[in-house]
């Protein structure tokens, strides 16, 4: 007979749980069978998480003197906090509440009602046993270092950095390329308003460059992250620029005089050239160039040094070395963006083989007044204007051979291209689409406008782009073979130019970045948010936030909103000065520790130290992250871990298996067919 007084609350979740699990039966069973385990009340209720449900718990704590609470409902990752708060309101230590999942782990995954009810009872029994072993705890309070690290200087990272800097706190902005700006800096116009990208982006870039609260680290990468929320230590490699930024005035003579031309695969998307010493574009922030060591003649042959000779301020320094910086920050925003899908992976569209097939980013550079053709929309020969153009949507997106997801921006970007082509060349423009997706503010209006401009739309996924002419009028053209699903027939449409609306993809190194910062990515490779609807910018790791396309394909307004949202979250924490963390920590009972040192090498956070003078091991609670590996390893059972103690887990195992050991309840049930 337990001395504790436990309340059990079984949620219907509308019909989400009650449709499969007999919730009344579960409550009745708990009240009866678990009475000698201390259950004094067991109720079922439509929505436990509603305010009425929560009040019910608080009221029972008061009136019935409950000392423990078990809620059988959804996943603790969804509502653990809700029910803990309810218990706290009722006057109970919030950690004496256990939420067990009978929705995600029972009603949503099983169909046999008897078996599901039976399992739900076992799960409740496990929760009851576990909560009996629980002890009252207090959250840990950790101070927050007021500086923030933002990784990635695209529009999302820029926005995040500016919000925090404007609020008066220090930001380090780490960008891999020589300049901040990201993809947006490559564009000419932005949908749906057709603002000039540079006009709206450049002022923000300049603010970053001149802001007293921003330390901008371009041509740099994060190499290591130690510590935890509130107190990260970040190691950054600042690659050698070979240009002394104290002396350089950004006059650009070095770039002008450098004899080595290099195809610019990044900023010019392969369409244009840069020099071996370069800034990616004229409005680059910072204005200082870098020497690309792999292409520099001096590093290859030992002679040249044209830039050094001609630099008026003597800023070129061939012997510069990479610098390693160590930063202390309290929070981190990852805004590393996306890569464009490589359309070479779909050989049917001929990219890389047929000269006049372009990617969307190439088209952006063509249309950009500061681009390689000075904004002239011309074929690969650099002079001929196309008379007809085909824009193919969903290249690499919504395609089970490549990416299943929709890249979200390509319909609008294709409409933008169609409009620009009409405006600048008057060409006949076809859009080949699967569905038109224009869901955001002023987007469908833009579609209507482009329709009224006489752009042609063909619904159907393009089968092939070829230069093999079969019919009259096809000679010398690119022929688009498509099933027009509205007309219900195959069509061959000859055009001069094809633009592939290639989808957005996670950065090629997204998995490494996720690992470096201790967060996870989806199977596609987008970094995972804490909650897909309610917490899109936080991650499962405290203190690490994500913003922009690193989280999934999205347009500029959404990227900006996420950058601002992430910084709002961080500012809130900086203002509070500290954060409350789950008190999941390991500690050593010095009397039990035999000094064997088995645990000493197990901790990845170096939380464990051995005191040779006293021959005992100690754990630093500020460094321990609560994984429990040392707890499991200690042969003397000297280490215990709060919230996941041996007692709790062993008791939960026993509780979960209670029904098996109880012969009169030993029902059998047909195993369920699995929809695989």
């Amino acid at each position: 007979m337990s001395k504790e007084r436990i309340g059990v609350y079984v949620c219907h979740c509308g019909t989400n749980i009650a449709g499969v699990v007999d919730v009344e039966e579960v409550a009745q069973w708990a009240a009866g069978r678990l009475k000698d385990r201390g259950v004094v009340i067991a109720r079922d209720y439509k929505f436990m998480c509603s305010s009425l449900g929560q009040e019910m718990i608080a009221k029972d704590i008061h009136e019935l003197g409950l000392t423990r609470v078990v809620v059988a409902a959804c996943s603790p990752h969804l509502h653990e906090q809700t029910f803990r708060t309810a218990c706290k309101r009722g006057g109970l230590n919030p950690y004496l509440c256990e939420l067990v999942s009978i929705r995600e782990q029972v009603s949503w995954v099983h169909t046999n009602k008897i078996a599901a009810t039976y399992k739900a009872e076992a799960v409740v029994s496990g929760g009851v046993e576990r909560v009996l072993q629980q002890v009252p705890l207090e959250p840990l309070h950790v101070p927050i270092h007021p500086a923030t690290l933002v990784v990635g200087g695209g529009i999302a990272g820029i926005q995040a950095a500016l919000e925090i800097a404007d609020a008066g706190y220090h930001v380090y902005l780490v960008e891999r390329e020589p300049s901040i700006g990201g993809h947006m800096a490559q564009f000419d116009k932005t949908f749906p308003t057709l603002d000039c990208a540079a006009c709206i982006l450049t002022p923000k870039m300049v603010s970053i460059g001149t802001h007293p609260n921003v330390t901008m680290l371009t041509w740099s990468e994060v190499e290591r992250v130690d510590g935890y929320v509130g107190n990260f230590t970040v190691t950054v490699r600042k690659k050698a620029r070979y240009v002394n930024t104290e002396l350089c005035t950004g006059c650009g003579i070095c770039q002008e005089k450098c004899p080595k031309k290099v195809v610019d695969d990044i900023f010019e998307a392969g369409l244009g050239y840069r020099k071996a010493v370069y800034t990616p574009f004229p409005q680059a922030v910072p204005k200082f160039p870098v020497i690309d060591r792999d292409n520099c003649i001096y590093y290859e042959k030992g002679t040249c040094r044209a830039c050094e000779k001609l630099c008026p301020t003597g800023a070129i320094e061939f012997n510069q070395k990479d610098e390693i910086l160590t930063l202390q920050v309290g929070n981190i925003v990852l805004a590393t963006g996306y890569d464009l899908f490589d359309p070479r992976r779909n050989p049917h569209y001929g990219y890389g083989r047929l000269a006049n097939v372009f990617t969307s980013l190439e088209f952006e550079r063509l249309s950009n007044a500061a681009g390689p053709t000075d904004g002239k929309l011309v074929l690969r020969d650099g002079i001929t204007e196309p008379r007809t153009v085909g824009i193919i949507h969903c290249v690499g997106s919504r395609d089970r051979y490549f990416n299943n997801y929709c890249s979200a921006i390509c319909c609008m970007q294709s409409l933008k291209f169609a409009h620009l082509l009409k405006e600048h060349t008057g060409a006949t423009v076809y859009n080949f689409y699967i569905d038109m997706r224009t869901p955001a503010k002023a987007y469908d209006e833009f579609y209507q406008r482009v329709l009224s401009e006489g752009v042609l739309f063909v619904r159907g996924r393009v089968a092939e782009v070829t230069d093999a002419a079969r019919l009259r009028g096809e000679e010398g053209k690119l022929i688009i073979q498509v099933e027009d699903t509205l007309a219900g027939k195959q069509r061959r449409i000859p055009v001069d130019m094809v633009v592939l609306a290639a989808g957005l993809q996670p950065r090629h190194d997204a998995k490494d970045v996720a690992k470096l910062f201790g967060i996870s990515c989806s199977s596609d490779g987008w970094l995972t948010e804490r909650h897909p609807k309610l917490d899109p910018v936080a991650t499962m790791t405290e203190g690490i936030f994500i913003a922009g396309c690193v989280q999934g394909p999205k347009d500029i307004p959404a990227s900006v909103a996420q950058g601002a949202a992430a910084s709002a979250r961080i500012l809130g924490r900086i203002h509070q000065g500290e954060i409350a963390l789950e008190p999941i920590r390991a500690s050593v009972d010095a009397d039990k520790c035999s000094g064997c040192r088995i645990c000493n090498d197990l901790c990845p956070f170096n939380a464990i130290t051995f005191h040779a003078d006293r021959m005992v091991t100690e754990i630093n609670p500020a460094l321990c992250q609560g994984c429990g590996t040392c707890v499991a390893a200690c042969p003397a059972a000297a280490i215990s871990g709060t919230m996941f103690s041996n007692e709790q887990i062993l008791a939960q195992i026993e509780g979960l298996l209670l029904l098996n050991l109880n012969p009169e309840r030993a029902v059998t049930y047909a195993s369920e067919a699995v929809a695989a």
Partner: protein
Amino acid sequence: MTEAFEPVIVGFTCNWCSYRAADLAGTARIKYPPNIRLIRLMCSGRLDPTFVFKAFSSGADGVMITGCHPGECHYVEQNYKAMRRFILLQRTLAQFGIEPRRVRLVWASAAEGHRLAEEITNMVEEVRQLGPLNWPTAPDGVQVTRSVEAI
């Protein structure tokens, strides 16, 4: 006998990957047999082999240990430690006369609800084939106490 036999499996999950895979299996309404009952740990590295013995001695027919993929552990590398313990555990179980196939180690990322459900389905079938464990339980048989010294 084997036809009516419904094995009971205890599954250990880690808070960051495999528990979330189970959540995802739920939200995606992927079905798997109800023979498994899950316990959440913070990390697969928390898995003390005693837990496995406890599960068997309390009536489980199989134990599934799950965690993040190697290299993806939230605590850097603790799942490698779980992997080493798992190998030792299988040997020890064999010495106790328990088929090593009654314990299974599964890596499932937070995105792999499908994979977790599939592994559960396979394991339930495999243990069904093996039949009940029938490990003598307290009070007549072996008793696994709550302290680690006992093993």
